[in-house]
């Protein structure tokens, strides 16, 4: 590992930061090594203040535009904010088109851009909407004095909760008119949300959907997460949402579910990093071993 590079990254050099993150992503730089040279972080960790916030939701609900506004507000208030924007890799070729930057304009704003770092990340081999290596990238960013890390997940469906394995808080973004009231009752992502934002409040159906979500949470146990309305386009509700999100407490609900996701993510990583993986996949495709054989070959130790 290049110690000078890591030190330069921690002292604020952007290029070194980007290089170190690539090293972590590619498995060439280990977090344990970095922890040894960073004796202390100038940012002490405060209890109940999040470091990482995952923003997730279905494709097209306006996650990128909303995040752009939030970044500008938080960076404008003096916080150093990093955005890790995740897009899917092709399972066939391994390639990826990372296009989240197209809608992020705050990073070009001269008054706040020194406080904003954006990095596009492909899911590579991992399943789920956030690869586990992102957890290491978040910790490094924190060691390098970035106050808060926002993760924009792959646009995800109802049951995609892998971000729970990584982020301190989960915000689910919804759009207006997302089906009838029963949709809000379905199990899945919404159960793990620490806050819900119904975006595109300028469109018909947003108020009603927010109300359905609130009703649904009140039928359940424990404290309901805040359900907020925003229009990233018209910039209404965004300041209020930014304030609530910044000091969002952990809901404390679903601790077991979060640990379940962490367990699954780590187990998956073990399989994906196994040197035997390629051979096992070939044998499976050739029909020479069964799935049970494959699991015992890969997951054994």
């Amino acid at each position, binding site marked *: 590992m290049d110690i000078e590079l890591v030190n330069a990254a921690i002292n604020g050099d952007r*290029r070194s930061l*980007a290089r170190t993150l690539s090293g972590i992503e590619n498995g060439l730089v280990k977090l344990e090594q970095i922890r040894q040279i960073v004796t202390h972080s100038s940012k002490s960790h405060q209890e109940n203040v999040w470091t990482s916030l995952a923003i997730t939701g279905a494709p097209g609900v306006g996650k990128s535009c909303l995040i752009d506004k939030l970044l500008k507000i938080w960076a404008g208030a003096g916080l150093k904010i990093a955005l890790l924007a995740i897009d899917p890799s092709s399972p066939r*070729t391994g*390639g*990826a088109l990372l296009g989240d930057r*197209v809608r992020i304009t705050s990073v070009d704003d001269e008054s706040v851009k020194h406080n904003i770092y*954006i990095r596009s990340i492909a899911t*590579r081999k991992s399943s789920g909407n956030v690869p586990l290596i992102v957890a290491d990238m978040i910790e490094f960013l924190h060691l390098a004095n970035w106050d808060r890390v926002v993760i924009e997940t792959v646009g995800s469906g109802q049951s995609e909760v892998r971000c729970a394995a990584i982020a301190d808080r989960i915000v689910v973004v919804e759009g207006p008119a997302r089906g009838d009231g029963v949709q809000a009752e379905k199990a899945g992502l919404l159960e793990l949300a620490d806050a819900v934002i119904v975006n595109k409040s300028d469109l018909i159906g947003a108020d009603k959907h927010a109300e359905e979500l609130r009703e649904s949470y009140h039928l359940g146990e424990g404290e309901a997460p805040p359900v907020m309305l925003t229009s990233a386009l018209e910039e209404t509700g965004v300041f209020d949402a930014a304030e609530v999100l910044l000091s969002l407490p952990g809901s404390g609900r679903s601790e077991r579910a979060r640990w379940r996701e962490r367990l699954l993510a780590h187990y998956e990583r073990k399989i994906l990093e196994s040197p035997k993986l390629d051979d096992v996949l070939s044998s499976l495709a050739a029909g020479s071993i069964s799935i049970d054989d494959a699991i015992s070959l890969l997951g054994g130790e």
Partner: protein
Amino acid sequence: MGQNIRIVIAKPGLDGHDRGAKVVARVLRDAGHEVIYTGLRRTAKQIVETVRDEDARFLGLSSLSGAHNHLFPRVCELLLEEGISDVIVFGGGIIPDDDRPALHAAGIRAIFGPGTPTDEILEFIVQASTMNDVGVGADNDWYWESSA
């Protein structure tokens, strides 16, 4: 792991035509690379900051507006000012033959015009990625002889 080449595809200037850039981005993606697309109408500075923050190994610039003689060398200059001398820069679009020597001299290692087979762009990426001294700041006059 580790072989995923990160490539920024950028549209500098006021040119609003991005069909070519999108085709190239798609071809690179399908070849297994990680492509970061900047969107339209970026300034040279925005492009350089994107390359820096994304730790890209290659930068592809597309221009169909005729402003390439100004914008492409400007991007190269700013990359060097940022200390990013090892990123490999290539260009594409409507670039007359007469303009190409000056662009190569500015550090652009390939220029692909309309009609270039997409495989040729992939071959360039593979070959250039194995060369150590073809970054924008390298003291080397090598460039790819493109077919179009």
